[in-house]
């Protein structure tokens, strides 16, 4: 069964690094670099996992997450949030918005991989 991850990230180099890492793990990686239509893209792509940046053009990652959690079919979708804004306030906001895992950039590749594996495992167990 193929696993699909949707990566919403506007920095092409970071997106490419994550794609490299996850595709080697057997993930099908789709990349989208704009916040404004991110929700529709997620709905259309129906990924198993979403990796979401916070500072996005068009629409902020936090707002996308909040809206996403209010949509019935996406409420339980695992979301790994990555942000370059390393303040504790952002973590709180993300957890309030219903994030599955929150990580600050720069991350270690191993952490990202572990997080993705954990999230996927949790999701498939349920």
């Amino acid at each position, binding site marked *: 069964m193929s696993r699909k991850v949707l990566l919403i990230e506007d*920095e092409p*180099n970071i997106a490419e*690094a994550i794609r490299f890492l996850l595709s080697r793990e057997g993930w099908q990686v789709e990349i989208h670099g704009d916040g404004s239509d991110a929700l529709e893209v997620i709905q259309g792509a129906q990924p198993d996992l979403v990796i979401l940046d916070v500072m996005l053009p068009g629409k902020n990652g936090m707002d996308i997450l909040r809206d996403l959690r209010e949509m019935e079919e996406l409420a339980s979708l695992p979301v790994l949030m990555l942000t370059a804004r390393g303040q504790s306030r952002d973590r709180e906001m993300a957890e309030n918005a219903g994030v599955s895992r929150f990580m600050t950039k720069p991350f270690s590749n191993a952490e990202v991989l572990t997080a993705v594996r954990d999230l996927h495992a949790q999701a498939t167990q349920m």
Partner: protein
Amino acid sequence: MTTVNVLILVCLGYVVFLFAVAFAADRMAAAGRGKWLRSPLIYTLSLSIYCTAWTFYGAVGNAARSGLEFVTIYLGPTLVMVSWWWGLRKLVRVGRSQRVTSIADLLSSRYGKSNTLAVCVTILAVLGGTPYIALQLQSITLSFSIFAEADPSGLYREGSSVFWVAAGLAVFAILFGTRNLDVNERHHGVVTAIAVEAIVKLFALIAVGVFVVWGIAGGIGPMMERIDASEIGQWHVDAGRWTTFIFLSAAAFICLPRMFQVMVVENDDESHLRTAAWAFPLYLLLMSLFVVPIAVVGLDLLPEGANPDLFVLTVPLSQGNDWLAMLSFIGGFSSATSMVIVTAMALSTMVSNHVVMPIWLNTQEGTGSVSGDVRNIVLMARRVSIAVVMALGFFYYRLSGGGAALASIGLIAFAGISQILPALVGGLFWRGATRTGALVGLTVGFVLWIYTLLLPGMSGASMPESVLQNGLFGISWLRPQALFGIEGIDPMVHSVMWSLLLNTIAFCVASLLSFPSPLERLQGAQFVNVFDHSVAPRGWSGSVAQSEDLMIMTQRILGTGPAQEFFQAEAEKQGGRSHLPEPTPAFLGRLERELSGSVGTATAHAMIGQIVGGSSVSVEDLLAVADESAQLLEYSSQLEVKSSELSRTARQLREANAKLTQVSAQKDNFLSQVSHELRTPMTSIRAFSEIMRDTEGLSRDEQTRYATIIHDEALRLTRLLDDLLDLSVLENGQVNLNLGDDSLRSVLDRAVSSALAGAGRKISVRRARAAERIVLHTDLDRLGQVFINLISNAQKYCDADEPVLTISAYDVGGRVIIDFIDNGSGIPPGARSMVFEKFARVGGDKAGGAGLGLAICREIMQRLGGEISYLPGQGGAAFRVSLPLAHRQAAQ
């Protein structure tokens, strides 16, 4: 027949008796006993010094000569007492509240404490008073002579006896009039002695009257028949004379120095006036009751040519009633002595206070401060003044020869002293009255009185006959007894009419024309509005009420607790039975000190003065109060300034705080953005370096590609740090401008080639090179940095298919303007205001910058004295850079 020697003994005995009365009264007053000494009755009786020997003897004489006209002399004071007692009350209140010592002092005080005016009044009073004293001496002499005629063997010698009488009266006046220098100038001993004398003279006159009616005429019925038969009983009312005399006696009653002395200065309690208002007219009625019978019987009984002025004595003598004659003599003696004593006291106060003391103080000016001996000096001055006044009276008597009828001298004196009336009444009721007005009016009236009445009335050489007949300098309308050609009027009526009329007119006109000094205005207000300013002065009975008032006032100032403590302590200190202390001077002094701690000295003094009433609020007090108020005002205005300063500071602090909060938020935001901008390239670098480290079997291409990414991101980091540092330096103003001269063209050349050097999208740059031949004096590298930034922005963000950047330069009004306009879609209107802010990247493009470029440009242009702005409405993105051409000065 009573011998003269017995008479002299009786006189001496009577004087000793008076001494004893006066002495006892003084002792009682000093000991604080003898409440009756201050009774309204004593006050009323003391007013009877109005009835001098002139009235005692002269009224009968007047009746014998002119019929009922004598009544006018009693009607005047009666009218004043009955219908004008409220005016007297005002006079008394003013006198009390201003601590006035004499009528001269009153006028001086009212008109700005003018001593000139006081001296004028004093001179007038002495001039008018001297003949009057002489008159009394004459009456005593005449009465002695009646007895002496019958007993030539006695000790009596006319010349020497007058001298001894005068000397004796002077001694009496000195002893009891200047015993002490009381603040309020009250002499209980003298006043009591005068009251006794008032009873004696009334008793004597009534006794003679009763003897005449019942002893000689044989009852009321026969007496009335006799009167009807006599010429005296006919009413010959000369309207002019009657009006004049009533008016004169009324005016004199108010203005005579001795009347002022007993009525105002010696007054203990304003309310005594109420009693006197009916009791004194009653006294006058009793005094006048038997005048007509005595005159009628005297004319009947005594031979033609007998002096009617002495009927009171000669009628009983002719009937052989020696004891009654003796009593009558004592009555006349009483009238004379009481008048002389009080007049001497009143005049001496004026002379010493307004003439002697000012001169003495002037002579002392050079010798330093006035010592405590002033008290003795004042007493000495008073004593000498009394002696001088008595001596003047004595010499006047000796010189005038005692010829004129008693009544005429009295009336002349009345007319003289009445000249004070306009200034006095005006001063009490008209605030517009001025010192100049009073002086001019007084002088006019005084001169006219001398010219029309005093001089013509005196016998002999006092005035040349030619002046009397033809007028001064031969001008007929200046004739003393027919001024302005108005003839046929009684000389007395004529003089009084003209002198008082012109006096009043002069007073009013001069008052209206002159300006009162501030002190005059203040005093004028104090006098005219005396009932608004002062509390009715109380006698002894009011002392507890005073303490209560003081208590209430103190509570208001110090608070209830401390005030009660203070009063209780004071009451205990006095050992009194009451819970309130007596208002003794010591207590008042301590209270004043206590209060002045809270409200200031002058205010405390004034407040206590208001309640205790005895001490007036002096001008100095008022000025001091005004001074304190001014200080308070200034203090409060200083406070106001301080408080406005404080509120300004508070506002500034609030603003600063808001600014700091804003700055802090901006700083948070900035740090957060810096963090983001730093972490983003670092994320790529870390991710790819881990990939390269951990991944086996990376292809050569992959390795190159990832290493390039790492390299580019590292460069991006470096650029970002450079920009941040640059911005920080620019913002802190630590930048050193490296000024140089070059043409705009070459600066643009370098910027274009530098911006387009790297790999990037192609953009064609269009320039009007001819217009760029402008020489700039500025930091050429910094300006180039701005140009490079704008060109690379166009290169990065211009979204046209064939991007074109047009650079045009103008030279407008001393400024060079360079526009950078591309053919892209431009910056959306909502974002235009943001483009120059830090990290304000428009849109989502990742064209490399961290969003600091335009912020740096703005800072640079500010340093260069120019500006950079977005130009809307140019089709594409359009930026305008402008800077002054003559930037040489500004850059330094």
